[in-house]
């Protein structure tokens, strides 16, 4: 069959009034896209700054909290008198060795300590004997 034998005809149809309404439909789509384009910068602007701001806020809160918690422990202990502290430590399951290990000896200036400072410590007889033996074994 030859192509010339077939009548040249457009068989496709469009809904009635389609081409009358098409320019308006296109105009509407352009307007809606332009609105999106205009609102996009403010959207991206807010996110551009919101994330770093959020990060800085979280970091600040975290640093402040950790600093505050460490200083607050020191502050809290400063308010507790020695007797209460000794009573607490003797009741707790912390051993003497653990307490000695946890003390930062560098903080203490034994040279400038009063000469009679050791006299104020009330050692029990047996504890004192044990301490003397330990010192003897360790250093002599």
């Amino acid at each position, binding site marked *: 069959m030859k*192509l010339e034998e077939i009548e040249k005809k457009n068989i496709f149809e469009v809904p009635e009034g389609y081409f009358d309404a098409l320019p308006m439909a*296109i105009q509407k789509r352009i307007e809606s*896209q332009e609105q999106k384009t205009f609102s996009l910068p403010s959207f991206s602007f807010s996110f551009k700054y919101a994330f770093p701001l959020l990060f800085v806020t979280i970091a600040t809160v975290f640093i402040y909290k950790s600093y505050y918690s460490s200083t607050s422990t020191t502050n809290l202990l400063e308010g507790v008198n020695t007797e209460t502290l000794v009573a607490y430590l003797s009741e707790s399951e912390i051993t003497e060795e653990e307490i000695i290990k946890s003390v930062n000896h560098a903080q203490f200036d034994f040279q400038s300590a009063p000469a009679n400072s050791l006299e104020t410590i009330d050692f029990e007889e047996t504890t004192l004997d044990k301490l003397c033996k330990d010192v003897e074994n360790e250093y002599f």
Partner: protein
Amino acid sequence: MTDRELLDKIRNPETTNYGFNMLVRTYQQKVYWHIRKMVIDHDDSDDLTQEVFIKIHRAVHNFREDSQLFTWIYRIATNECLSFLAKKKRRFFLPLEDVQRELASKIDNADGIGGDAIQKKLQKALLKLPDKQRLVFNMKYYEELQYEQMAEITGTSVGALKASYHHAVKKIEDFLTTD
């Protein structure tokens, strides 16, 4: 209104909306039918036609007039069609035959398609051509464009277009005879 006048109206801020509206009214049918013959379905054609004019609206201010307004618009419409068909084939991992079968069934069953049996047979024969060759056939046979215009639209040489059209006609006549 000539293309020159349309462009002048669009480029003048005071008449830009009016000018673009006139451009749509001047070219909407050509663009729509160019697309419809390729994608067959009215809703797809409607969506693509609108998309083409949105792209034109975005780019018309930078149109350098290296080519005619008419061929520039046709080129946008052609690219839009070919990308749509390529996407359709990729989207569902459909083999070419399945897309061809889907479009052929639309010719038989979809609303808004008239014509007698032989006209429909011709359309189905056209679907067996590769998309670019179908495009060349439509532009020459239905839209009666000059080869020079087609060369500007497709970026293909006149010689290659003539050969493509000649082969397309032969293939279609073979399909019509054997089917």
